């Protein structure tokens, strides 16, 4: 071989490797936060500059004991799983129980059917700890049943486990990826027929059948799904029973006297199709680590179910008005070519969801239409929106199980003792008596009806005929035992947003007229009680006669002043007029009004042409340097001033002491400032002010693992996966909500998380939401009320709570950039109200925003939402974080709807999620320099103050003395990577020199 070829070969090899390592190094540095998180390495350490007298620096302690005590960790884990099980014990809702089939007190030898039984959905794909049958500490359905004393048909179980049914598709790595379809999720008829021998003569005490439905982050359940082979030829809803499931139920029904169906689905299946084959139906959602224990206890009867639905189970999952323009059926603009020609495709602006339903989501639609049908108002009985092509709309044909519904093994009698009013609250006293034979818990559900009269019709103020107002749950009541509950209702929850109030400025009003406070077993029962109090009966078309004594009436005069102001006297006024499609294209579309159901129910999708005026906003560029802004240098000169302040010194400094906070921040260099805008799984240290730390993420598990040394070895234990949120919310138990908040906070505390993005407050706008399992319910008031104790409990632990996805992320399909059009009333009383409990009332430490657009602006770039509502109206001071919006390096070309960094910052957003290399922050500094814009720099300082304020109120300061300084350290992998690049560079250069030399030699 010639010398030149040898050196040519080596040059090619090393030069190629050099390029790979160089680019790889860049890539690794851009993604350093993920690598550090995966490797568990920190990029900072603490140095105590003055050894002072020993003080206890564990500012946030665990209620389970010292962090270095293995026994404390065991107590924590035990408490996590107990919380998980309690959620199922009190959150699973018994929908049907014919002939008292449940509990299975005497059943011993049972047969379990359904692919989901052997391969359950413990959760769906999103953030947080993942649980499978094999996961440490996971309790499978079979384990739980056996622990409850059942003997499970093993041969049948093994036979089903050997099947091929699956929920989703195998991805490129051979893993199952959820696709929102139910096709093929159950074995076919022939498969089960081959197993009939396993239960022909034994295991006949009862049959348990489990079905599952799963969406995922980024994947809604399909509104147009395919049936199993041999089934319907057209599209069916993914929430409808599919052919294989129906065949299975037929076979089981024919072979067993007792058939119990478990719904392993947080999304509302079309249960009416299951009922003919079942004796009992139990909704169990996703169980998390050990929720099946609670399921088995309910089946056995050692636990009496007390869960109540937090979603409406409609007969047809496609019957809600919100379904028409959303989810997997979300339409696009009509003139996409024009849009792409004008602003390109990177702005992700193709899809638009016109929220024609107005305020009528979930039960607020079905029950309001029912009330109007009974009262003969608003053309409510018309055909528009009637399911299955019916000629008229009838409640009994539309709703299977209403919001708030759930059976018990005992019976209760509930009575309103008294209702007391004061200026701000209504206090309802309810006595609950267990009138049955076994102990149980009961929920006192209090609903309200507010007036819908001439003013409301004229001013387009919509009213739900019934709305949740408050609730309380009893202790375990023995047979014959009573308990008196007191429920306090905030009158604010009865106010309506009127965008025409105050001469068009808008604001909340209390309508004039009769108000009703009603007790009910569910929302429909409560409405019937109100209707009874108004004189209506079954003769008017009611589904049942109500009990007038369970409704309390009071009168209110018109009041548009009571809720006129928010925090610090800020006037509450219209902020979201641009989010109404009719603002851009007059009379382009109709929102539902209960004054005319027939004329406004969306019977077809709404699609429009995007206009030039809309495109001007959609291009995302609107920031201009304000007049009078300081120069870049004026602000830059304030930096690098050592004030001697440390993070611990700031832990008691209020935000109102702006001067001290600025002194703290101005110790940084300008180059260090952008790090304070970076949120990621491992957040970077901010200069020498605050260290690197991790964050938790997940609404039913904060993820992460707790590492402790046991017998000299490091042991990692994953934090618990709790039940899906509709199950937790469905406990209607404030103690359970508090417990969830406490345990998630403790999980975060032990994992070293500064903050946990752990509270799912978005609404179940339709039954198809891919992340309904993470979000609480379809009712904004329920989310408001349930989140308060959860967030308050988490905040007490020193690991902050942050609700997500603020706000309006109620579909996964094209969630990135989807344009949502709505009325201001619907948004404020719906999406915003659902978060208001977490944020304004419970004062969460942060929020995570969402991907969709509010009107034409990305939620993170909405000044109305982030500054006007959050900061001004609500007076909230937490950290505002985008959803995933990492920038690569200093990439900021102003193209792509998440790359308008200055606009996002100017809107009030202060952190970029998964931007561990703080590309957005760097891009803003660069722009501030280029445009001599000190205002942008000051906004960055504001962001840094918010971030450091949150850090200073968290467990991150544990172990830090008042004199502790943060020193940044370079992780070992970065050093090794740099060395590799240098070595390869030298080798490549050497070989190239040798190549040239050999060529010259040959030439000579």
């Amino acid at each position, binding site marked *: *071989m010639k010398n*030149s*070829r*040898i*050196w*040519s*070969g080596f*040059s*090619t*090899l090393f*030069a*190629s*490797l050099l*390029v*790979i390592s160089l*680019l*790889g190094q*860049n*890539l690794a540095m*851009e*993604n350093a936060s993920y690598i550090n998180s995966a490797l568990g390495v920190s990029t900072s350490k603490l140095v105590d500059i003055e050894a002072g007298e020993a003080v206890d620096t564990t500012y946030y302690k665990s209620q389970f004991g010292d962090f270095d005590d293995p026994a404390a960790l065991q107590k924590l884990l035990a408490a996590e799983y107990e919380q998980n099980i309690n959620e199922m014990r009190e959150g699973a809702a018994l929908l049907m129980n014919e002939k008292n089939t449940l509990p299975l007190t005497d059943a011993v030898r049972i047969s379990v059917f359904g692919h989901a039984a052997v391969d359950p959905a413990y959760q769906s*794909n*999103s953030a947080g700890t993942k649980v499978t049958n094999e996961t440490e500490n996971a309790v499978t359905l079979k384990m739980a049943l056996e622990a409850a004393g059942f003997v499970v048909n093993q041969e049948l179980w093994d036979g089903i486990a050997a099947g091929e049914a699956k929920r989703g598709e195998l*991805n*490129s*790595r051979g*893993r*199952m*990826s*959820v696709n929102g379809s139910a096709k093929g999720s159950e074995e076919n008829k022939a498969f089960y027929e081959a197993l009939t021998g396993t239960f022909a003569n034994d295991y006949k005490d009862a049959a348990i059948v489990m079905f599952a439905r799963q969406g*995922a*982050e*980024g*994947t809604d359940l399909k509104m147009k799904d395919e049936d199993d082979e041999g089934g319907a030829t057209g599209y069916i809803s993914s929430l409808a029973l599919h052919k294989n499931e129906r065949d299975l139920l037929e076979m089981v029904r024919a072979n067993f006297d007792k058939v119990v169906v478990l719904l392993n689905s947080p999304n509302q299946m079309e249960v009416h199709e299951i009922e003919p084959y079942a004796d009992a139906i139990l909704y169990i959602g996703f169980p998390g680590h050990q929720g099946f224990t609670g399921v088995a206890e309910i089946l056995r009867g050692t636990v009496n179910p007390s869960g109540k639905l937090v979603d409406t189970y409609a007969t047809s999952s496609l019957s809600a008005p919100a379904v028409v323009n959303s989810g997997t059926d979300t339409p696009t603009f009509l003139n996409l070519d024009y849009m792409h020609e004008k602003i390109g495709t990177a702005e992700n602006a193709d899809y638009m969801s016109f929220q024609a339903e107005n305020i009528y989501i979930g039960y607020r639609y079905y029950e309001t239409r029912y009330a109007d049908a009974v009262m003969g108002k608003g053309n409510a009985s018309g055909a528009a929106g009637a399911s299955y092509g019916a000629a008229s709309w009838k409640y009994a044909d539309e709703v299977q199980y209403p919001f708030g519904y759930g059976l018990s093994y005992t019976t209760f009698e509930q009575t309103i003792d008294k209702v007391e009013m004061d200026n701000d609250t209504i206090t309802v006293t309810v006595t609950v008596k267990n009138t049955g034979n076994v102990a149980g818990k009961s929920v006192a559900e209090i609903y309200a009806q507010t007036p819908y009269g001439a003013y409301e019709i004229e001013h387009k103020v919509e009213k739900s005929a019934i709305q949740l107002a408050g609730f309380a749950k009893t202790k375990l009541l023995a047979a014959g035992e009573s308990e008196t509950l007191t429920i306090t209702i905030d009158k604010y929850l009865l106010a309506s947003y009127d965008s025409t109030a105050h001469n068009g400025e808008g604001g909340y009003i209390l309508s004039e007229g009769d108000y009703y406070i009603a007790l009910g077993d569910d929302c429909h029962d409560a409405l019937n009680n109100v209707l009874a109090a108004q004189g209506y009966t079954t003769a008017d078309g009611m589904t049942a006669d109500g009990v007038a004594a369970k409704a309390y009436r009071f009168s209110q005069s018109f009041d548009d002043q009571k809720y006129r102001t928010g925090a610090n006297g800020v006037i509450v006024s219209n902020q979201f007029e641009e989010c109404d499609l009719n603002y851009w294209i007059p009379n382009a579309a109709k929102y539902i009004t209960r004054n005319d159901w027939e004329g406004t129910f969306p019977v077809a999708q709404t699609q429009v042409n995007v206009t030039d005026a809309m495109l001007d906003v959609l291009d995302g560029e609107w920031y201009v340097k304000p007049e009078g802004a300081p120069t870049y240098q004026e602000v830059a000169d304030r930096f690098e001033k050592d004030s001697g302040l440390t993070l611990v010194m700031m832990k008691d400094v209020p935000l109102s002491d702006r001067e001290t906070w600025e002194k703290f921040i101005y110790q940084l260099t300008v180059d260090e400032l952008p790090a304070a805008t970076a949120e990621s799984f491992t957040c970077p240290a901010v200069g020498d002010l605050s260290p690197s730390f991790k964050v938790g993420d997940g609404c039913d598990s904060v993820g992460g693992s707790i590492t402790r040394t046991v017998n000299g070895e490091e042991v990692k234990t994953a934090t618990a996966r709790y039940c899906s949120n509709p199950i937790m919310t469905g406990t209607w138990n404030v103690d359970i909500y508090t417990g969830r908040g406490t345990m998630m906070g403790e999980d975060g505390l032990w994992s070293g998380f500064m903050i946990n993005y752990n509270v799912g407050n978005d609404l179940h706008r339709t039954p198809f939401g891919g992340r309904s399992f993470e979000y609480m319910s379809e009712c904004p008031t329920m989310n408001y009320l349930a989140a308060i104790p959860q967030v308050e409990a988490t905040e007490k632990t020193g690991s902050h709570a942050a609700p997500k996805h603020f706000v309006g992320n109620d579909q*996964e399909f094209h969630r*990135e950039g989807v344009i949502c059009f709505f009325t201001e009333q619907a948004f404020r009383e719906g999406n915003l109200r659902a978060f208001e409990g977490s944020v304004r009332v419970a004062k969460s430490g942060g929020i995570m925003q969402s991907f969709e657009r509010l009107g034409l602006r990305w939620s993170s770039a909405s000044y109305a939402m982030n500054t006007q509502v959050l900061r001004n109206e609500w007076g909230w001071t937490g950290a505002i974080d985008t959803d*995933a*919006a*990492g920038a*690569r390096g200093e990439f900021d070309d102003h193209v792509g709807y998440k790359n308008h960094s200055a606009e996002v910052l100017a809107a009030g957003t202060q952190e970029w999620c998964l931007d561990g290399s703080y590309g957005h922050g760097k891009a803003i500094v660069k722009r501030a320099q280029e445009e001599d814009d000190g205002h942008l720099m000051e906004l960055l300082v504001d962001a840094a103050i918010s971030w450091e304020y949150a850090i200073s109120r968290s467990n991150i300061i544990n172990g830090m003395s008042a004199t502790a300084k943060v020193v940044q350290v370079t992780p070992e992998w970065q050093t090794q990577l740099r060395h590799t690049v240098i070595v390869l560079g030298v080798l490549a250069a050497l070989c*190239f020199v040798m*190549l040239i030399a050999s*060529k010259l030699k040959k030439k000579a």
Partner: protein
Amino acid sequence: MKKKGLGFYFAACAAILTIVTLVLLFVYSGRGGAVQNTVYIALVAALVCEASLLLGEKPWSDFAGIIAGVLTAYATVTVVGDGLWNIAESINGIRMIGIPELAGMNYTLVGIGLVSILAVTFASFAKKEKEA
């Protein structure tokens, strides 16, 4: 008459793989995958270099191999860097800011790129032609 040496076949292999990569990238891009224009330019330039190796032992042959290797390395790492979220989301079974369905193509493109680099490296070591 000169016969084709081992280097010729390695260069031919590298060139074919580069063409395959270009075709795959068009498909990948058509499905929404992010491909920077510089990647196409780099690959076309690499293809020209690899093709030049097919002409036999030329004064530029030693350098053409180096350039082809470097450009292919650039293209491979750039494509995988731009497709990192496809892979991450595919692994986690979620859909966030990437296109998880394209993860398989990302793996394929990385594999082909690395084999292509190896091929051009071997081509650089080996004779492109030998005397008959």
